[in-house]
């Protein structure tokens, strides 16, 4: 996506975003790649973070070793936030201020639907999962209808529906969690799986996260729908002239976001062994961390830019950074420093973006 040569200065400097000149020295080239390729920057950061904590763990500065088994078990906390960040990727890329604040509400409500199916209704697990995910998709469809067809600003539509879904989740079982015997047995879905050479990997990483990532990558990077989504997000008027079904494409992005939130609802219920009506809204809620990770992963809030790979690396970075911080501080201090780290990483990476934009004229 290079800028047209017409905007390039007349000086012998290369056009911004054009192929780098052959004589560019290696350090400058590495710097350019690190600054303009979000995935590269995050990968470097990830290596630094892991190396620093590993070194500290080896020298007994941490309360427990920061090794491969620990990193593998830390993936447990990455599953919900990473899937939700992919959901945000879909809607933010769809453009026109796309954002989904209601994922927390959907997780709560779809989780209650799941809990009702498994517990009081006594259904088998598989149909219950399908119903819960479908419920999430239906709620996403409401968002998509409001945003794509009625043309509500996404921030407002999803703010309103997040209030509504959260309230319905609390109302559904009179503010009480569902933790019948069958619901507790769902915990089996999130048991640890011994992977030789690594350690115990949480099962949901393999059964939920990896399939979601593969499908999301296929849809975004390898399907006509994906191309249409990026086109719509970049410029919806141009996409309309290029015969793209703009409204349907945007609508489906929100449906996808709701669907993924439904998947997260299933994972969360299994993880807690209980369907909690406030699962998606406890603390700061689930939407804000997910948006943060999506943005950190290089998703441009203006739409049209963002990749699954960037979001995954960002989620890994945040997860393993948080895991390290938990070991470095005693008691509740660790969770505080996690907030600081998340905020600083977000703002600093955005500042780096600005810097790269000024220096190289484009960023990926």
């Amino acid at each position: 996506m290079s800028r047209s040569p017409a905007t390039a200065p007349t000086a012998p400097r290369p056009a911004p975003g054009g192929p780098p000149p052959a004589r560019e020295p290696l350090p400058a080239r590495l710097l350019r790649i690190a600054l303009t390729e979000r995935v590269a920057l995050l990968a470097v950061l990830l290596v630094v973070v892991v190396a620093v904590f590993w070194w500290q763990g080896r020298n007994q500065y941490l309360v427990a070793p920061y090794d491969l088994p620990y990193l593998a078990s830390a993936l447990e906390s990455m599953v919900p936030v990473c899937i939700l960040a992919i959901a945000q990727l879909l809607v933010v890329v769809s453009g026109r201020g796309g954002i989904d604040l209601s994922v927390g509400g959907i997780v709560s409500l779809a989780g209650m639907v799941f809990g009702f199916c498994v517990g009081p209704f006594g259904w088998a697990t598989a149909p219950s999962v399908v119903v819960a995910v479908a419920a999430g998709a239906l709620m996403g469809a409401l968002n998509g209808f409001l945003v794509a067809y009625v043309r509500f600003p996404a921030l407002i539509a999803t703010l309103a529906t997040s209030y509504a879904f959260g309230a319905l989740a609390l109302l559904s079982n009179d503010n009480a969690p569902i933790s019948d015997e069958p619901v507790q047995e769902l915990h089996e879905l999130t048991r640890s799986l011994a992977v030789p050479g690594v350690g115990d990997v949480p099962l949901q990483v393999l059964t939920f996260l990896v399939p979601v990532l593969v499908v999301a990558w296929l849809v975004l990077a390898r399907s006509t729908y994906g191309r249409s989504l990026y086109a719509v997000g970049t410029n919806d008027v141009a996409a309309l002239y290029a015969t793209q079904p703009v409204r349907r494409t945007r609508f489906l992005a929100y449906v996808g976001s709701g669907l993924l939130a439904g998947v997260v609802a299933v994972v969360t219920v299994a993880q807690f062994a209980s369907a909690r009506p406030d699962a998606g809204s406890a603390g700061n809620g689930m939407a804000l961390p997910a948006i943060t990770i999506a943005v950190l992963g290089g998703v441009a809030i203006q739409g049209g830019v963002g990749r699954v790979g960037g979001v995954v690396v960002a989620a890994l970075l945040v997860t393993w950074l948080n895991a390290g911080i938990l070991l470095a501080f005693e008691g509740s201090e660790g969770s505080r420093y996690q907030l600081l780290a998340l905020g600083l990483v977000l703002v600093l990476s955005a500042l780096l973006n600005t810097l790269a934009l000024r220096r190289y004229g484009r960023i990926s």
Partner: protein
Amino acid sequence: MSVLATRPEPAAAATTRRRPVLRGVEGQELVLIGVLAVTWVALSLATDTFLTGGNLRNIVFSVAPVALIGIGMTAVIVTAGIDVSVGSQVAVVIVVVGKLVRDAGVPLLPALAVALVLGGVLGTVNGLLVSYGRIHPIIVTFGTLNVYRFVSLQIFGNEQVSGVPGTFAVLGGGQRGQLLGIPAAFLLAVVLGALMWCYMRFWPTGRHLYAVGGDPLAARLAGVSVRRRVVSAYVLTGVCAGLATCVLIGSGGLVQQNAGAGLELAVIAAVVIGGTSIVGGRGTVLGTLLGALLVGTITSAVTLLGWSSQLTNLFIGVFILIAVGADLLRERRRRSR
């Protein structure tokens, strides 16, 4: 969407003579006043407790913090920005001021000054990052939401601040916080709201806020100092958050670590119900105050009618959709004309 497109300026007024140049009360505000009036009449008929002095006092006092922050937030959203860090700003100010008042026995006015200045500083950080760092406001304030929350928790240590004296009782919900029988905090919000309404309507720099939100490039070419206006909006929001904190401390007592959590969504809800366009360039403080009042009324109504308190958020969600939907419809009709 520029100021010209949304307000009947002289050129437009010449063709449609029915409209005065600057109407005092705009469409969305009329709708809100109507909705408020209908709900109030219905509630006073349905319950015998709604139309009592005590209940009305409770409503207007409970909306005061949201209304106060909404004054600043309106300016921010009019410049096409957003500030989701206000809840964390409140958390920082509340722990600092709470500890100052309790441990150092600081009297009202210096404590108030500390709250306002501290809020202003937190807002300045946001404003500078948005305007000079050229980062999207929602990213900046998501970041500072986390950082400010960290700062506040760090100052809290591991315990709540209990036994805060009633230094701010004049702004609190008790007997001392009333002026002519009306909560002083609400009066303060109304007075400041009126000042801000005049500023944004008649003052050049106030009009510039709309120009910046409509089209920052055009505004810059027209000689508006865009960056300064943007920073000023965030600083104002911070100061308002500081003031709202004093209301929240009120007559003292316990200050909890989760103070201010979720406040940002309540404020944004009040602002958008009030007809401020989230894409910038349009909106008034009057609408925000009415929006905050509507949210307060709903909350009170659900309690009085004996319904489950969870219904409150459902109604707030529905009202946001109705209010903004009505605004979208009017906008579409205006454009097709």
